[in-house]
């Protein structure tokens, strides 16, 4: 390729001058185009958590019932009877602004893969949505597309969508938030992890073919969002929930054998991040032969294949003697299955294509030298965000205003588009209780599931807002009679390079950490979405409200004993708590 590889190109890939210098130092030479692509996605905010990592470390993550905390594809907690709940929440904000239906749909697809990749059958989806002002042009189209997309994907894969939340605020006019959560069930001693092992073992690609979808999606979702976003459109990924359903069944069928050494879904930064993470975690090297990658389009380059975000794909390391058994399962389900490489003892990721070595990067430095920033913050001016209502308006007027407010009105028009009953275990559907209750198949156990966050509070005071979101999730679970076990989170904020935004992030995490500690409600998985900003015509950056969405999970011993909202006849209404 006749492109000059230099700091300027690196910058257009989203790497700073310093970051590019580190690349040069690691490589000891100018990187190839493909190598630069790999560095840029691995060191993007999305994959490296470079702005949030030092703060995330302060969250409590342990409890006797936590089996796997953050660091794996999803969090895993013990729910009794030899079973584990596997769950996580993830954002698909930017793609959902560009193409609401596909953005939201592929968001659901991605989070499902994070869960079944660990050996869990997905049993419930939730979705936390924030949209712009209902009167803003464009809001209707985005709401419509996102809700259809969430439903379109979840309904087809046959996982019930049992809860979520919807807020409207003008701060989300140009930047909606789509946070999707999936919960799955696995045997607690049969959890699949991503650390690769066994030099020589085959690296296997399964699922859909690779196309030119979403190339640079991971860096796009970290790049500030402005009017040019429109011109970045051709990178949207299109999801195929039907293939995802087949992938779930095929993976679970293979997982019932002992053929798999390690497995990882191809999410953001597709083949790059899955290969790098599997090999890196296992302390081995990996060699990929891209000629073997199933391709949807002709003439794809190594760069394109490494960065493609085509959906519904997984990468696995298999025991060599079991590959044919695995191939038969995937062929039965009409899915692509290809051996695209093997593990090595080099400690490098080596990428070959058409006889040439397109990339050869040492994995340890790629991970260890990944940028980590302690970005500056400023003290926040917390006065003035929440105004008391002007004059006493009278209780009747106040009540009517509240009932009519888009944030409090019925959400039935949303959840009526989501299949909430498939699976036959939804004991409390959306709207029926403070948390949805889903019975665990074959047991009496019920999982209590909720998502919560009140962005207005977080703007007024990020620390107490973060704490409040955790507390509300805890209360919603408790109110059904379940015992809260753990949370997943999705931290949605603006540009962390602005000190006031960084302060919101730091403070919100502090609040969450305090609440989680106080309630013995550890964080076991999560996701960070930054740079959620739009530029006004005058050039002013407008960030979304700080939105640390919390997904809570609890367990009740007998799903049929859960408490709903409907007030039984002949009962008294009792208020408890302090004034």
């Amino acid at each position, binding site marked *: 390729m006749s492109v000059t590889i230099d700091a300027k190109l690196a910058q257009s890939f989203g790497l700073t001058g310093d970051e590019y210098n580190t690349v040069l130092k690691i490589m000891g030479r100018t990187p190839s185009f493909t190598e630069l692509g790999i560095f840029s996605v691995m060191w993007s905010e999305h994959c490296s958590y470079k702005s949030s990592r030092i703060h995330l470390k302060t969250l409590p993550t342990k409890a006797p019932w936590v089996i796997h905390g953050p660091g794996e594809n999803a969090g895993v907690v013990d729910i009794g009877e030899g079973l584990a709940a596997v769950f996580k929440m993830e954002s698909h904000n930017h793609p959902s602004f560009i193409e609401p239906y596909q953005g939201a749909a592929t968001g659901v697809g991605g989070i499902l893969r994070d869960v079944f990749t660990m050996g869990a059958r997905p049993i419930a989806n939730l979705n936390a949505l924030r949209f712009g002002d209902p009167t803003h042009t464009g809001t209707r189209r985005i709401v419509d597309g996102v809700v*259809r997309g969430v*439903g*379109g994907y979840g*309904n*087809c*894969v*046959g996982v019930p969508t049992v809860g979520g939340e919807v807020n409207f605020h003008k701060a989300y006019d140009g930047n909606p938030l789509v946070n999707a959560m999936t919960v799955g069930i696995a045997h607690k001693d049969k959890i699949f992890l991503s650390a690769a092992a066994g030099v020589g073992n085959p690296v296997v690609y399964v699922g859909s073919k690779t196309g030119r979808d979403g190339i640079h999606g991971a860096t796009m979702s970290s790049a500030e969002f402005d009017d040019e976003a429109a011109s970045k459109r051709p990178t949207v990924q299109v999801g*195929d*929930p*039907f*293939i995802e*359903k*087949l992938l779930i069944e095929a993976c679970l069928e293979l997982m019932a054998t002992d053929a798999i050494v390690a497995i990882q879904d191809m999410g953001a930064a597709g083949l790059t991040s899955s290969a790098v993470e599997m090999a890196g975690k296992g302390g081995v090297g990996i060699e990929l032969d891209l000629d073997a990658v199933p391709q949807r389009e002709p003439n794809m380059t190594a760069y394109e294949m490494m960065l493609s975000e085509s959906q519904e794909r997984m990468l696995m390391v298999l025991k060599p003697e079991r590959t044919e058994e695995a191939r038969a399962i995937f062929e039965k*389900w*009409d899915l692509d299955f290809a051996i695209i490489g093997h593990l090595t003892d080099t400690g490098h990721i080596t990428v070959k294509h058409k006889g040439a070595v397109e990339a050869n990067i040492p994995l340890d430095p790629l991970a260890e030298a990944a940028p980590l920033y302690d970005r500056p913050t400023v003290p926040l001016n917390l006065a003035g965000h929440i105004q008391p209502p002007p004059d006493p308006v009278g209780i009747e007027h106040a009540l009517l205003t509240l009932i009519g407010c888009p944030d409090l009105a019925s959400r039935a028009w949303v*959840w*009526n*588009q*989501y*299949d*909430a*009953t*498939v*699976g*036959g*275990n*939804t*004991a409390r559907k959306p709207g029926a209780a403070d948390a949805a209750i889903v*019975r665990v*198949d074959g047991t009496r156990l019920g999982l209590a599931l909720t998502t919560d966050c009140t962005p207005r509070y977080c703007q007024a005071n990020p620390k107490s807002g973060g704490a409040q979101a955790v507390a509300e999730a805890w209360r919603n679970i408790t109110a059904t009679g379940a015992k809260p076990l753990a949370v997943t989170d999705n931290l949605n904020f603006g540009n962390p390079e602005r000190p006031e935004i960084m302060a919101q992030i730091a403070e919100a995490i502090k609040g969450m950490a305090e609440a989680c500690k106080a309630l013995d409600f550890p964080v076991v998985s999560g996701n960070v979405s930054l740079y959620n900003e739009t530029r006004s015509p005058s050039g002013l950056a407008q960030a979304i409200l700080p939105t640390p969405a919390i997904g809570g999970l609890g367990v009740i011993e007998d*799903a*049929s004993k859960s408490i709903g909202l409907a007030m039984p006849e002949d009962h008294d209404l009792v208020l408890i708590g302090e004034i």
Partner: protein
Amino acid sequence: MKAGIVVFPGTNRERDMGHALKLVSGHTPKMIWHRETSLGDVDLVVLPGGFSFGDYLRSGAMAAHSPILREVKAFAEKGGYVLGVCNGFQTLTEAHLLPGALLRNAGLRFLSQDCHLKVENSSSSYTHHWKKGDVFRAPLAHGDGNYTASPDILKKLEEEERVAFRYCRSDGTISHEDRASNPNGSLNSIAGILSENRRVCGLMPHPENLVDAEIGGVDGLPLFKGLVEALVG
């Protein structure tokens, strides 16, 4: 009762159906993969809900043309019992085992909600545990449930009393135009129909999701109890 549930790629309510059949009959039905060439020894074949082959052309179209459907047709022609729920109903119409077709919901949106059904014919094995006129509740979850048929087919269905279930209000009143009682806009509020010999039945809502007092209720049980009684004798 020896029931078999046909599983296509994309089927997703086969477990729900299996659970309901096991509950009433005590026997675990066998799952029949769509590539199998024989149904084996069964006395009831069920086509369950889901999105067979992604439903990418028309709902149920690809399933209807799959090899296993030839077996299902032969089974039905010999007088076998075939139940199609949701995607299964769509497949049965596409395969011409039941007349008519299921169009996109009138509101063009996927609908997931409870509906009420009125039993219009209680003389089939599927419905004889109800009385004609009984009303029960069932969840529905579909995008293409808007039943249509040509005027002569419709006339025939009505004359032969082959409408098994109609969408209605909770008090049993029927209004074709009212989206609250006929949510997907079906012709004559038709939710389920029977074949001429009353042995093939298709319906859109999901009685199999209402067989457990702890999960929503037991409104769907009579259908399965009726079947067991008819088939076990």
